[in-house]
């Protein structure tokens, strides 16, 4: 049965001010049913204040075969991490 029913990706915002975060996927016939199902499957323990559902087929993913060229060039650019700065004591928590 679920072979005929489209797959949806579910994003939940845990509270105001935070971004929606991917939490999983589900099957539903359309967007209204997907939102209902997301509410029932992924917010049972008070996880969210807002839900997005996106058809899985609308997502374009990076190619795992390109992982080396995509991600490895950043490995030796440690100066992009803000760890070389002296933080004045007055600043407190950063």
């Amino acid at each position, binding site marked *: *049965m*679920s072979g005929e*029913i489209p797959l949806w990706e579910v994003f939940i915002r845990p509270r105001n001010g935070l971004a929606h975060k991917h939490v999983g996927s*589900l*099957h*539903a*016939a359309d967007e*209204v*049913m997907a939102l*209902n*199902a997301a*509410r*029932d*499957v992924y917010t*049972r323990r008070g996880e969210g204040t807002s839900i997005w559902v996106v058809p899985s087929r609308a997502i374009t993913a990076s190619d795992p075969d390109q992982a080396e060229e995509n991600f490895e060039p950043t490995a030796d650019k440690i100066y992009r991490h803000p760890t070389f700065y002296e933080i004045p004591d007055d600043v407190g928590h950063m």
Partner: protein
Amino acid sequence: MALMDAVLELADDHLVLGHRLSEWCGHAPMLEEDLALPNMALDLIGTARTLYDYAAKLEGQGRSEDDIAYLRGEREYRNCLLVERPNEDFAHTVLRQFFFAAFMHPYWHAAQDSDDEVIRGVAGKAVKEMAYHIRHAGEWVIRLGDGTEESAQRMRDAVEALSIYTAELFEEGAAEGAPALPSRAAQREAWDATIAHVFAEAQLEMPEVPFPQTGGRKGLHGEGLGHMLAEMQSVYRAHPGATW
């Protein structure tokens, strides 16, 4: 005791329907519904627990919510007949849920103005739950009613089978003498409007019901309730006073 009897009717409606829904747990047609149906069951059972607890306090005989739920026989149950109808197929289940929630939503909405603090508290929580039950079950009624040939036929069969139990929702029952609770009959207009709205989209029609079924408020139930209670009460009766 009018209030206690009326609270008991409400509690029985919620426990019986909650238990019926819980029977789907592990058997629903898809994983998403396997979570959604018990979610709704837990809403109903949560409401039932508060109401049983309140009924026990009103009675003042030292009975607990468990005693009332698990130690009464079928003839002592005061739920309406709709909620005890067997699950049958998914169409029956979502339609039963839709009929009930479409009634309870305006009922709890009105009960938010009750002069009884417990009733107000229950109503404030339940009115939101019922709004979701209407949405969830209603969307299914629409999709099955206006779906494939088979789903439409199953939904029409469910309407035929369950519409004879809807008139009983509006009978006043013990609440007649309990001003803390809203009038059941007064919810008819809101119920009709909700049903008409969803049925129009679902390509369904409410049939004429020449002989509506009734008797639940007097303890006269269908055959199914006894079987359901026997299973539901078996653990408590085998181990009286057990807690977990």
